[in-house]
């Protein structure tokens, strides 16, 4: 199933944290079938940018448009299309993997049944751990539970903040193939990672954010 065409446009984005401007006059346009790799040294504002793009953070100036409309105005129509995985896993430690995914699927408005969820967890390499409270899982296993959402969602825009962290080699490969799949289906992926990304189809665009600590005047 291919996603309908979509595009994310950013014009004149400016974000200030503390007394430093992380970026001023940032312009961007990403379309279906593209992957945006945001790069830059520690502290240059990658996480901040990603959070602004999902609407979790209100930028000081600039517009973020989804299919030509401001994401603020779109509200829930935009959040339906986006999935964000950040530094925090966003899973409840007291719930099992299954329960976590069931809740997030319901809230995301994805109609999936339990079989699909079991399946997703198995695919992501958590067979045998589905029924444990995620509290007792290791760092990488917790991350996998969070990533399993990618298998269930129909969101067009994936925003992934360092998704490869804490994963072992096999899991990294699995995630890469998921990303490739999303781009091939005509989705959009925005991610940060300190390693290289390869795609078999679609375009990779990279955005290099400046040096940390650099103070750019208005």
């Amino acid at each position, binding site marked *: 199933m291919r996603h309908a065409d979509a595009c994310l446009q950013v014009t004149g984005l400016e974000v200030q944290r503390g007394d430093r401007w992380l970026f001023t006059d940032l312009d961007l346009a990403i379309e279906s079938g593209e992957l945006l790799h945001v790069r830059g040294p520690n502290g240059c504002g990658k996480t901040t940018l990603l959070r602004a793009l999902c609407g979790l953070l209100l930028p000081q100036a600039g517009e973020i448009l989804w299919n030509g409309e401001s994401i603020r105005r779109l509200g829930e129509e935009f959040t339906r299309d986006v999935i964000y995985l950040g530094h925090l896993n966003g899973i409840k430690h007291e719930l099992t993997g299954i329960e976590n995914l069931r809740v997030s699927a319901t809230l995301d408005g994805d109609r999936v049944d339990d079989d699909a969820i079991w399946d997703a967890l198995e695919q992501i390499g958590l067979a045998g751990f589905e029924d444990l409270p995620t509290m007792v899982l290791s760092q990488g296993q917790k991350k996998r539970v969070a990533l399993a959402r990618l298998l269930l969602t129909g969101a067009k825009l994936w925003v992934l903040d360092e998704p490869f962290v804490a994963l072992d080699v096999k899991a990294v490969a699995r995630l890469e193939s998921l990303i490739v799949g999303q781009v091939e289906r005509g989705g959009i992926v925005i991610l940060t990672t300190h390693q290289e990304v390869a795609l078999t189809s679609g375009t990779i665009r990279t955005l290099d954010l400046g040096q940390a600590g650099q*103070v750019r005047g*208005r």
Partner: protein
Amino acid sequence: MKFHWLHFSSPATFYGLAGRMIPWFFALALVTGVVALYWGFFQTPDQLGGSNPQKEYYRIIFVHVGSAWMSMWLYLVLAAWSAFGLVFNTRLSYMMAVSVAPTGALFTALALFTGSFWGKPSWGTWWDWDPRLTSELILFFLYIGYIALHSAIDDARRADRASALIAIVGLVCVPIIFWSINCPDPNQCAALHQRSSMGSIDGNILFAMLALTFSFWMYAFATSFMRVRSIILEREAGTTWVNEQLELEAKR
């Protein structure tokens, strides 16, 4: 007209405007304050008769009533600026709200203090859980809550918006709170308004009271403008206009 309005809502313009106005407000406050005190201490009777006779200590009334009124008025102002900020998202309105709060808290503290220093000679007790006193104490808590929340958040924008929200929630609740304290038993609310022990108030006393209140009001303008200027500088550090302003001030 619209252009005008936007013009003064920019921190840069307002910085200069406030700077020019502060001396005038201070002058007004000083003049009316001196007149009020002169009138209050020399043009009023030494004692009051009536059902509850008051000796010289009734002269506390001028600070007391002035500060009590200002404490309530400034909370309204604070909430109004906050609402304005949340609706129009103008930075200056948040800054105004933040800069009014400490002055409001100061007047509340002063009203509480003068009230209890009046209560001791008049009622024989420093404190009584009378509705009016309790309301004032709660107003003080609301101010402290606002200030505490604002200073507990490091990110200036989040602090502004979060405390603006609590100010408005407070404003919605204030009438209910005050009413509930004034009327703890809804079955007997009709008998609520006790008559003032001062009887019909002497014209001179009223004049001094109003004059001091006006003086406090001007003082509140002056100090909140001073505070807003500091806040503007802190927030806008590094911009060109601040640099130019600094040069100007260095020359002076």
